[in-house]
């Protein structure tokens, strides 16, 4: 099957973009080759020819306070963008012409160089702190990665969780209120996790016991979370503002490790969310693919009847997975009010739960893949934030679209290549 819209024959449904042998098709190679050439041309024309000659850009690699400092990198912006543009065009042409075969590898390299050219252009006559950019990307990836992990737990067990957004929002709200009331963010953390688990239980009840269409069940929870949090914000938080002052977690540096240049400030001087995120990615990867629990959970998601036959309690396994996923999403939600900013705002999650869902698909239902995908989305979001501050002629409203457009492109470009668990979304009934 091909993905080329112009190709004759019925359009693909499930396995779009993968030919019979399982490799990328010629049409896909051509498409990505052309896309790479277009990126190169944009870099060449907009960032290269479009910028003034003789102006330098500077990349900074220190955050301050490190023992060993890496010197700043200063270079002529126009020349670098021009060279990069030519290289990207050449890569794309080679891919489209059949000289190169690793479609995603080549496209990835092209995209990476494109971003460097973009940064060089944006930082002309100015500086960009690369450490700050990467650190911000990591921070913004937190709710996406954790949300995607929640999705991995539910969907590996065969329950589609589209309610991640609602869980994030409800947990952010609860986290803010309970932390304010108890005067410590730890209580907020617990409150958020509890609410997440509760909504997970609600989703599980709807989809497992009452066999409600899982996408509709999730949408209901999303609408409900928006309604209740908006209602209570207008009703309670506006009047009792001290209930919306939760305070926030402080970064905790890990001794010795935090002094390593570049890596230290990036990875080992963070709030607990980053550490828990890494622990969960590693732990879930092990648990899902190396433990008995994980084998059973995946069996239930792939072939519930077979799992039932060998004595696994399908429904109970699903209940537990969805409630656990809800708890993880709840934990992610508290990040908004206990780390990102201190306080709740209506609809503050702004679709992050759905982007997490895209990260889950992009990451092929695997914890590590989901984490990497979340980093990509986090980078897109952070980059947009940085560009808005620099002197770029793009209007801020259009820059704000970036994460959403990137999500669409990723889902459209890659969804056919990743396969959902076979029984994802299907209720299991005996008899």
């Amino acid at each position, binding site marked *: 099957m091909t*993905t080329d*819209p112009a190709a004759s024959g*019925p*359009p*693909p*449904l*499930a396995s*779009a*973009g993968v030919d019979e042998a399982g490799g990328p098709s010629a049409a896909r190679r051509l498409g990505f080759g052309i896309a790479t050439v277009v990126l190169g041309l944009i870099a060449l024309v907009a960032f290269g020819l479009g910028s003034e000659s003789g102006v330098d850009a500077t990349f900074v690699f220190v955050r301050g306070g490190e023992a060993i400092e890496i010197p700043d990198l200063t270079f002529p912006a126009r020349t670098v963008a021009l060279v990069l543009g030519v290289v990207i065009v050449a890569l794309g042409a080679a891919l489209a012409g059949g000289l190169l075969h690793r479609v995603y590898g080549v496209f990835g390299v092209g995209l990476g160089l494109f971003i460097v050219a973009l940064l060089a252009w944006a930082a002309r006559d100015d500086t960009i702190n690369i450490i700050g950019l990467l650190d911000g990307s990591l921070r913004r990836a937190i709710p996406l990665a954790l949300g995607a992990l929640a999705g991995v737990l539910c969907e590996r067990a065969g329950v*589609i969780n*589209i309610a991640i957004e609602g869980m994030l929002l409800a947990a952010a709200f609860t986290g803010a209120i309970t932390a304010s009331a108890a005067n410590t963010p730890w209580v907020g953390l617990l409150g958020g996790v509890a609410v997440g688990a509760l909504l997970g239980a609600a989703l599980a009840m*709807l989809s497992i016991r*009452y*066999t*409600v*269409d*899982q*996408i*509709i*069940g999730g*949408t*209901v929870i999303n*609408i*409900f979370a*928006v*309604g*209740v949090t*908006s*209602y*209570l*914000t*207008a*009703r*309670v938080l506006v*009047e009792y503002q001290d209930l919306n002052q939760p305070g926030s977690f402080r970064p905790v540096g890990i001794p010795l490790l935090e002094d390593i240049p570049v890596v230290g400030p990036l990875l080992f001087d963070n709030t607990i969310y980053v550490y828990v995120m890494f622990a969960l990615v590693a732990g879930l990867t092990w648990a899902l693919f190396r433990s008995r629990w994980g084998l059973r959970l995946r069996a239930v998601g792939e072939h519930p009847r077979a799992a039932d036959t060998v004595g696994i309690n399908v429904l109970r396994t699903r209940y537990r997975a969805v409630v656990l996923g809800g708890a993880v999403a709840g934990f992610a939600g508290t990040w908004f009010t206990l780390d990102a900013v201190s306080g709740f705002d209506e609809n503050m999650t*702004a*679709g992050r739960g*759905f982007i997490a*869902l*895209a990260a889950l*698909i992009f990451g092929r239902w695997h914890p590590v893949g989901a984490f990497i995908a979340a980093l990509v989305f986090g980078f897109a979001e952070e980059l947009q934030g940085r560009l808005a501050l620099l002197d770029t002629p793009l*209007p801020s*409203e*259009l820059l*704000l*679209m970036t994460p*959403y*457009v990137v*999500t*669409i492109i990723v*889902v*459209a470009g890659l*969804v*056919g290549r990743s*396969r*959902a668990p*076979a029984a*994802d*979304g*299907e209720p299991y009934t005996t008899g």
Partner: protein
Amino acid sequence: MSAVLDRGRTVGRALLVPALALLTALVVGGLVIAFSDPDTLNEWGEFFGDPVGALSSSWDIVSESYRALWESSLGSPSALGRTLVETTPLALAGLSVALAFRSGLFNIGAAGQLIVGATCAGWVGFTWDLPRAIHLPLALIAGALGGAAWGAIAGALKAWTGAHEVITTIMLNYVSYRLLDYALRSTAFQRPGRNDPISQPVAESARLPEVTIGELRFHAGLFLAVAAVLFVWWLLGRSTLGFRMKAVGANPFASRYAGMQVGATYVVSMALAGALAGLAGTSNILGRPSYSLTGGYYSEVGFDAIAVALLGRANPFGVLGAAFLFGVLRAGSTGMQAATSTPVDIIVVIQALIIVFVAAPHLVRAIYRVRARGGAEPAFTTNWGS
């Protein structure tokens, strides 16, 4: 005679679950109102000292809220007019979601399609200067086309790449919010002399005529909505295209085996759904008295539309009824907030509860111990993989 009785019984049975769902949602919503009112909560704090006081003050706030809701939505001809004005976009947007449901697609993107439709119609409405006989139809067509194009993106992405429409339509919603922000700050749209995001008003010649019957006032968009209901009923029940849409919705694999073009059907379905949502936005900007584009409103209607379609069970006439009910809630909630300071957001809670109970008929039947009789529940969507 017995045929009529049978038909009545069928309709009655079909209405039973939605009616019980509405009742349950109102009861639970009442509890939410009672237990979130600060004064009432204080009374409950002294429950053991004065149990009667706590109960009666809870009863007071709930009954006052619901009475205000009733009075400002159905209590007078002018209130009914406001309800009808609210009903119009809800019906059109609800039809959009319902039509997509019948093709096996979950259109969460009505919000974005509304915005793009309203933006296109508004631009035609206040930029061009034409005689009425041309201007109004052109503005309506522009709105429908804008929505159709926005909807077709999601359909095409699904057909060509397999990207699930739930994610793409949600993302397209966010993109459209930013587009609207951008448009409302641009010189082509923003009202001269204003700093807040509001567009110029639509020219007289592009406005939907107002209908006045005594105190009852609404705009002609309502007729558009009713016509759309009849059109969708005809499309789904009487046309070849509608048959193909339903077949693809029921089983895409079998449809493809039968020689139908599944992908093309997805694109057409989403374009039609988008056109209906676009008209919903259009009816609003061309009909509602401010005649201008602002942020906020459209995304709410887009999400209400999902509830309307579910409550109406994806049936065109059911959607019209559900839209009227939600119109009552929308029109009434404003009056309720003014009279009792119960925030308008309560209707979102009530709506979510209604959908829970409608989507989970087993749950409602379990609460009221009503037995299920014949026929499977309609399946609305398909999952990720397929």
